[in-house]
């Protein structure tokens, strides 16, 4: 049965857990898949490293932890050093180019986007994660684009829908522009 493991990693305050929730909800509620989201908690994560992990599957998920994520979204140097750098061939790596310096090209199929810079340029640095989500949507169809869109709207503050949708599409289009259709 199809099963995809996704890791989202960066530092506290980047909205990583929110991303996990958006993806999880999109998959489980709108795409009618099974999804489980786990995350690293604790004071040590505050300001420090932060991680959310999602499993999406066509069958019930007994073991809710990921072991070999097919997709990793990396939003900090620390996270890159720990996870991204060693992502094996055949997996997908999405990286915020603004926050991460990659010494040598990783084995994984890697795409970069300066999401945080784009967000700053858009005037609201908090939407970097949504931009990244758009970028994610462009590179993976584990969750449908529409499902992600709906899910974004569910989680963001009322009134900010348009702006977030713009961020989402910006990320999506950045990829389209750069890489063509996924």
């Amino acid at each position: 049965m199809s099963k995809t493991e996704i890791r989202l990693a960066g530092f506290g305050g980047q909205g990583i857990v929110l991303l996990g929730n958006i993806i999880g909800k999109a998959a489980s509620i709108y795409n009618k898949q099974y999804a489980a989201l786990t995350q690293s908690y604790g004071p040590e994560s505050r300001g420090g490293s932060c991680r959310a992990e999602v499993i999406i599957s066509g069958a019930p998920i007994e073991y809710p932890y990921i072991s070999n994520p097919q997709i990793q979204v990396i939003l900090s140097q620390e996270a890159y050093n720990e996870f991204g750098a060693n992502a094996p061939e055949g997996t997908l790596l999405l990286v915020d180019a603004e926050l991460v310096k990659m010494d040598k090209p990783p084995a994984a199929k890697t795409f970069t986007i300066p999401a945080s810079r784009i967000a700053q340029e858009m005037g609201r640095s908090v939407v970097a994660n949504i931009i990244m989500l758009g970028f994610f949507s462009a590179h993976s169809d584990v969750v449908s684009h529409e499902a992600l869109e709906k899910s974004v709207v569910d989680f963001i503050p009322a009134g900010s829908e348009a702006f977030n949708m713009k961020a989402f599409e910006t990320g999506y289009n950045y990829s389209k522009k750069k890489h063509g259709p996924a």
Partner: protein
Amino acid sequence: MQIDDVTSYERSIAKYLRQDRLPHIWCAGCGIGPVLNCFLRAIDSAELNPDLVSVVSGIGCSGRVAGYVKLDSFHTTHGRAIPFATGLKLANPQLKTVVFSGDGDLVAIGGNHLIHAARRNIDMTVICINNFTYGMTGGQVGPTAPLDVRTATTPYGNFEPPFNLPWLLHASGASYIARWTVLHLHQLELTIVEALRRPGFSFIEVISPCPAIYGRMNKEPEGLDSLRNYIKRSVIKHGAGPRETAIDHKGPIVVGKFLDIDQPTLQDHLIGVAAKAKKPVKK
């Protein structure tokens, strides 16, 4: 430039800091670090023998202080730093016991121990980091949170009136009471020195930013926002009376030394007990 000319920092606090544990867990812009800095300087300024200083903390962000001081240090249970320190002190009166913890730890779950320790006037210095919230658990309302503030458990605004800590401590029997913000660092250091030297129960409240949680929910998302706020709102008034030291959401934050009195300590009284107990009792 080389760091070889021994500096003030090196001289005064490096030896009391567990540098092997830095960087610490506190968030960017948290106020606990500067208070710890002052405390460590005060050990030398008060001319204490560091071997005889014990630091006891409860649980909370502030309660992590015990883990960063290179002194005999105890990270106990939530709210129980004071009774733990009471045992330590009574079993070895030579020890200088300092309790360093947060408003939730000392005043919510630990409130009873706080007032009873003050009542006993046990020789102990309590430094309370008051950030108006439970930082460690994610910013719930605490017993010092002003009315109307937003916290993780008061989404419609805080509906419980807060304590006025200097007043509570005074009424409980403390010998020394002061309050500063994390900006009043020189004053704070002097105050800690005084408190450490004053026999009996001393209580120092330090108003401190918790930008990551409390600040974020109350329009002070950066530590600096809070500090700027303190500059605007704080008023030094030594000996301020009980009515003046209440803190509300927007009004002045009165700081200063509010009480410093000489009164017999628990140890003084216990010496009398020991004297009376000399003759053996009947079985």
